[in-house]
């Protein structure tokens, strides 16, 4: 497995995937903020995005300039094929572990 996918990295990757073609800094931040009810710092978010880009899990392009951003463009992110593979691998691993651990993790017992 190329590179290790951290918990936060996985979260960011999945968020970007679920935001379809509107994944940029602010939208990702608000999405995560709302869902996890924790406030992530913009610096930490962009650092993680940079790392994911370096690992080849993300690609990006500049969008159109927008009024509410002082006329500045957004950078829109997309999960690449390798990113998808990494996510699937992670999920498979989880699923396997869940199956194996099902007995112990049963909440009803």
């Amino acid at each position: 497995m190329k590179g290790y996918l951290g918990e936060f990295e996985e979260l960011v990757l999945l968020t970007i995937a679920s935001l379809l073609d509107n994944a940029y800094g602010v939208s990702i931040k608000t999405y995560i903020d709302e869902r996890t009810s924790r406030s992530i710092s913009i610096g930490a978010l962009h650092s993680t995005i940079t790392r994911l880009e370096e690992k080849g899990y993300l690609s990006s392009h500049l969008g159109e300039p927008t009024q509410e951003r002082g006329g500045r463009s957004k950078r829109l992110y997309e999960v690449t094929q390798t990113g998808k593979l990494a996510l699937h691998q992670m999920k498979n691993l989880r699923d396997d572990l869940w199956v194996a651990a099902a007995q112990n993790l049963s909440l009803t017992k």
Partner: protein
Amino acid sequence: MKSKIQPPRLADSLFLWYCERASVEDLHGDVEELFYADLEKHSLFRAKLKYWQRIFSLIFSYALRQRKRRAAYHPYSSGINTAILSNYFKTAVRNLAKNKFYAGLNIFGLSLGMSLSLLFISILVFIYRYDNFHTKRDQIYRVITQVHDDVDNPIYASTPADLGYVLEQELPGIEKVVSIQGTLNGEADYEEKKMPVRGYFTEPEFFEVFDFPLLKGNPATALKEPNSILITEKEAEKIFGSKDPVGEVLTIPPYGEMTVTGVLKDVPKNSHLTFGALASYSTLLSAGQQNQQLSEASWTNFTDSYVYFLLPEGSSSDAVENFLSQLAKDRYPKDDFLASFSVQRLNDIVPGVEVYNAIGPSWDHLSILLVALTTLIILIPACANYVNLSISQSLKRMKEIGVRKVMGGQRRQIFFQFIVETTLSMMIALFLSYFFFELIRGEFHKMLAEADSMDMTPNFITLICSIGFALLVGVLAGIVPALYFSKINPLNALKSMVSIPTRKFRLPGRKIMLTVQYGMSLGFIMAVVIMLQQYRYSMNYDFGFRRENILDVALQDVKPQLFRNEFGKLAAVQSISMSSNILGLDYSAVKFIKDESQQDSTAVATISIDDNFIDNFGLHLIAGSNFSSDQNSNLRHIIINEEMVKAFNLGDAFSAVGKTLLLNDDKEVSILGVVKNFHYTSLRQPIGAFFFTSDPSEFQYANLSMPLTNRFDDLTQMEVAWKALDSNHKVKAQYFSDEIGDAYSFYFVVIKLWGFLGLLAVTVASIGLLGTVAFTIGNRLKEVSIRKVMGASTESVVFMLSKDFLLLIFIATIVTVPIVYFLFTKILVQMQYYSVSVGVSEIVVSVLLLAILGLTTIFSQTIRAANANPVDHMRGD
């Protein structure tokens, strides 16, 4: 309404300033969008605060750092790849080929500097390989003694002889203790042949601690029995030839017959223990030399005993250290003699602290440092010249650098390019320097005191080290030019406007450097000239006795009377005298003598002579008479010198004759005569009180007075005569004047060493000067041409071009001469009591020599420039 409220301007400008050229449009947009979103939920102040927070969080984030890094380089110039490296290499080679003159000078200078460095490296490599063949070297220690005399507190490598025994008996936890006695030093007698043998007495544990393999014999038993001896392969071949030495018997006085129990492999040169033979320690005990076991006296005597011990793997020496310090307190309770013991790791012995009584060759840190310093004295100016010359040539390379920068070459890359160039020159210099190194290696070998036990042949490690060193020097020497070039603004470079910053470099640094180099060269030249003068002075000094036509023959075991009879028959020998020492050399004996009224005896130098001696050496008797031929009356008389008359308050020379003194506290001797002062010892010491005795049992030398007309015949005759007296030894004869000469030969070593360094220094300085002069003139060719066209004479042009450099040499002279003068006035007196003071002639000769060298260098360039046809340099304009 919304558009009126803006994010904090200060935060924005801080952010943009910090981001430099990095692309952060999206990040900036993000924070601004979040700011407006915040405005809807929070107060303005809160929103601004959060804005600041986010800006800082971005500034310190990994994201921004990466973006900045990416923005710093052109996409095509990121990193250094092989293509660009080969381009640097090619440019460097072309540049060297284009400027053959400067490149040649540079590389020649560097290689001179490097050759000395190579020498230093090979010495260093050798030293650091010392004792590395012992497999247990990390566990081996030796005990050293420090005597606290409140003056020097000298450290001795040796210990009291019984310390090893005590350590073995009283301290558990030591694996092995081995005592070594370094006194095995004598002539081994084997079937009428005598061979000098030198080595140690030691115990069988020696082989368990150290790795000295035996070729023959059993290491466990070979040194067990008294009077057994092991000899090295080399010695065995000298004594026994091809015969198997095991079981043979050698006679070594005073220990008697020793049986050879084995053969040792030759001791490697990088061992601090050096021996030709090892004898069993029990020999000493049985010979009764060592049986003062644990007596008081033996603890204050530690001249030749050494104790080494082996600790079990992984244990520390603290316990031994504590035991030893307690032991020292117990053994030296009194204040009159204080000493302490400590342990020294085998790895710290060579190179290590300076110790007395070293068991073998030693290198202390100070002497290594001195060698390093000498190396740097030559290497640094050579590198400085390199820097100087490369920057001088910078104008020619401006365009190249400008183009490189415009095409996207980063500062860091230009820097790297010049480092590559310097390193390349350095590598060529290293290659060349090997030839110089081979030339000087032999000479240096002879000069160093420890040289005979040194191995400086280059090996793989030396090669690696010297390449590493050359790279290091290359980088260091390259830094200044590389920084300079990389700083150049490409616009100015392309417009050829960079002559402005060069001036900054040109002014003080370069001239100071040349001046210092010339000063140093002058210093070396003066030192050599002064030393030569000193040597000549010593050789021609009037010692107060005759030196010519005297041959000193060592008596060895021959009785003086027999010698006189046999050699008296030779036609060439005019007269024969006997003496216990040789005059005028450092080693005359000392005896204690006192006046009857005095409490304590004084140590006074003395030589024992016969009645012919005074005539033979042309000494001048002022008062009294010579020894007579009557042996018994001679023993009761002494002859003193003028200085002794004064020292013992004996009035004048005439009244001194007949007075009695006490020799060695008990023997009454009367003064037979007084001789005029003469130099009984070397010129290093002042003439002090001195007396002659006449005791035939002390005679060591016969002094034959014989003209040197046909040396060869006389010597063969003498050898025949000697054969009749003593067939065991070879005749040892030397001309007295040669012996005196030898005593001052150390001047030659100094002269050679300094001469060599001086030669290097002068060459390097001349190279620097030549390069600078040639460059300066190259830049002024147009000016010279215009001047000539306007009617300036050749002489005036030469003067104009040379005057800066002449001034430089002049300043170097003015500064150096007084420094060297005062230094040597101090040194010479310390070196030799009767020394010549530094005279005007030496200074004049040195300065002239330097001036000739400097002027030739300068004028060779300036005259050529002044004689050039002006048309050649102006045609282009």
